[in-house]
């Protein structure tokens, strides 16, 4: 079979990249008549950031140093003991370990499945737009609905996945068995994230110039090697963006899935750190410990982001 050029671009607005800001040579800055005016324009945005981000953060940090009375009758300063309690707790470390495994697996699978689907959809010649629309339309389903559908796949009575597992002699008990619950959680979390990654990978693929792919087709016989040496490096900016988004998603946005899966179930179920924050704070009314945990999470995310930008982005070529 001769190589056939992929179809015209799809979703061009997603492929647009921010251009580096160019400082005009003949300094064309707009001057405000009053020095107060720019701050006035900034005020609404600043207020939003302050009220919904900085203020709660400061609250979390400060209350992490206190033990709060569950009924709100006062608080006692305890210094770092909330942190030491949390960090020395074997249970907390177990949850942290699960969170790491969960995040790694969800990110890995949702990225690779999204990429695989995107590559395959991109190569489809006939009826490609129908395929793409079908694959993307999943993303239009509201997250809670998607989570509920995911839950139903693993329902003890009507879940098809449980049924399928039983054919292989796997008596799947989601909500009872630690491993089975973890498995279901990861599958649903991945399933929900794949369309998102698909959209971005697809638009990323379509922003790789057709002629570059054609040049590669002339230079390299193996399609796999071509993908690995030409297409993938050019997809790196998209992949890096998605990596950050997916890690954040696995850490935080899977809360709903976990909640539906483990709520009102027997105690020994896998949960992530975010869910632990919620459990301790709102179920256990231990606001101090909950705050300390969220501060720890904040630091983890902060470090992770810096790491990603310092060490991963450096190796990426932006066209």
């Amino acid at each position, binding site marked *: 079979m001769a*190589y056939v050029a992929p179809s015209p671009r799809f979703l061009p607005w997603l492929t647009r990249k921010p251009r580096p800001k160019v400082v005009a040579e003949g300094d064309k800055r707009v001057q405000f008549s009053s020095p107060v005016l720019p701050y006035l324009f900034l005020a609404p945005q600043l207020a939003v950031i302050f009220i919904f981000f900085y203020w709660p953060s400061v609250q979390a940090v400060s209350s992490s140093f206190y033990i709060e009375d569950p009924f709100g009758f006062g608080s006692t300063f305890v210094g770092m003991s909330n942190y030491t309690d949390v960090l020395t707790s074997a249970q907390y470390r177990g949850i942290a370990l699960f969170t790491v495994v969960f995040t790694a697996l969800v990110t890995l699978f949702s990225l690779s499945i999204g990429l695989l689907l995107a590559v395959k959809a991109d190569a489809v010649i006939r009826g490609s737009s129908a395929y793409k629309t079908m694959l993307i339309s999943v993303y239009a389903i509201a997250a809670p609905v998607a989570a509920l559908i995911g839950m139903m796949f693993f329902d003890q009575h009507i879940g098809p996945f449980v049924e399928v597992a039983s054919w292989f002699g796997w008596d799947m008990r989601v909500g009872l068995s630690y491993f089975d619950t973890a498995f279901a959680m990861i599958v649903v979390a991945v399933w929900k994230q794949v369309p998102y990654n698909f959209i971005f990978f697809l638009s990323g693929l379509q922003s790789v110039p057709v002629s570059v792919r*054609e040049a*590669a087709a002339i230079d390299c016989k193996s399609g796999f090697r071509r993908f690995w040496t030409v297409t993938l490096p050019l997809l790196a900016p998209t992949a890096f963006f998605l990596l950050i988004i997916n890690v954040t998603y696995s850490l935080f946005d899977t809360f709903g899935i976990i909640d539906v899966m483990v709520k009102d179930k027997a105690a020994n179920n896998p949960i992530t750190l975010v869910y632990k924050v919620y459990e301790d704070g709102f179920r256990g009314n231990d606001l101090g410990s909950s705050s300390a945990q969220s501060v720890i999470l904040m630091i983890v995310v902060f470090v992770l982001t810096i790491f990603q930008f310092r060490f991963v982005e450096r190796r990426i070529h932006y066209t």
Partner: protein
Amino acid sequence: MASIDINQVSKIYAGGNKAVHSVDIAIQDGEFIVLVGPSGCGKSTLLRMVAGLEEISEGEVKIGGRTVNTVEPAERDIAMVFQNYALYPHMTVRQNLEYGLKNRKTPRSDIDARVAEAARMLEIDQYLDRKPRALSGGQRQRVAMGRAIVRKPAAFLFDEPLSNLDAKLRVSMRGEIKRLQRRLGTTSIYVTHDQLEAMTLADRLVVLNGGRIEQIGAPLEIYHQPASTFVASFIGSPAMNLVQGELHGDRLAVGPSLLTLGGHAPTSGEVTIGLRAEDLRVASPDEEGLLFRLDYVEELGSQRLVHGHVGDQALTAAMALDVALDDEMKFAIDPRRLHFFARETGKRVHAPATAPASQTSVMEVA
């Protein structure tokens, strides 16, 4: 190096749209073939079918005697230079040049030698460790050519490689491509819509129109004996004048003017007459000629183009700078330099047994 045979090749797109109609071209080893035509004439499609980037709907393409219809582009032993260079943006110039060789498991020492040679030939040695984005358009073009050269392929395919360059650079790169091709002796197919580029580069020209071949031939042959009104108007600048006329025996009527052909009339009745602007000269007062009304003048420096009308038909003539211009003029032309085309088909009507018009500069007939 190899010959390329294009046998009855057609391209039919989904929906029955036929872009290339049963094209036949036999390209000899080492020949420089230029496919030229207006946009949409199928020249790029044809090239891409040879490259393997486009499926061949009908017919057969042979490279070096081997049918390659179903062979992958990488295994056709061709190298292609693209209009927008198509360099790999994430690789340095050196990596760009090496990529095709590495994938073919060429020994390291061989790769280094070939890259060094190509870099020297194209004068891109000092850019080898730069990324393409740090290069100018002309430099990128050189890298793209280098990528083709290092492969030492059986054939080079050029897809309008110069159209993204500015006019001055285009002229110098044109010369360079010609020089390189001469030196390497590699069979080449070059696609362009620029007739000047086509004329200057080609060993043989293939003029395409609407997916069909209008004419194949050496540049001068096509210039002097265009096979149709299409070729006549496409090749040469300014375009050949095409006017409607009527032949009565030995006399030609164009609007109100009458010319005597001195036995050079190939047919009779209504014909389309082709006149090159540079073949026209001002007639002496007692001579018969085309009565010309001047509209405007274009100064080209070395000569001037005078635009006007004969009867109600537009005509352009190239005049030397010392020719006095007037609002009403009379032009004469050597009858042997007239081109006759059938009115309906636009095909050339060949003069029976006259001296070939491709003879150069036998101008004045006393």
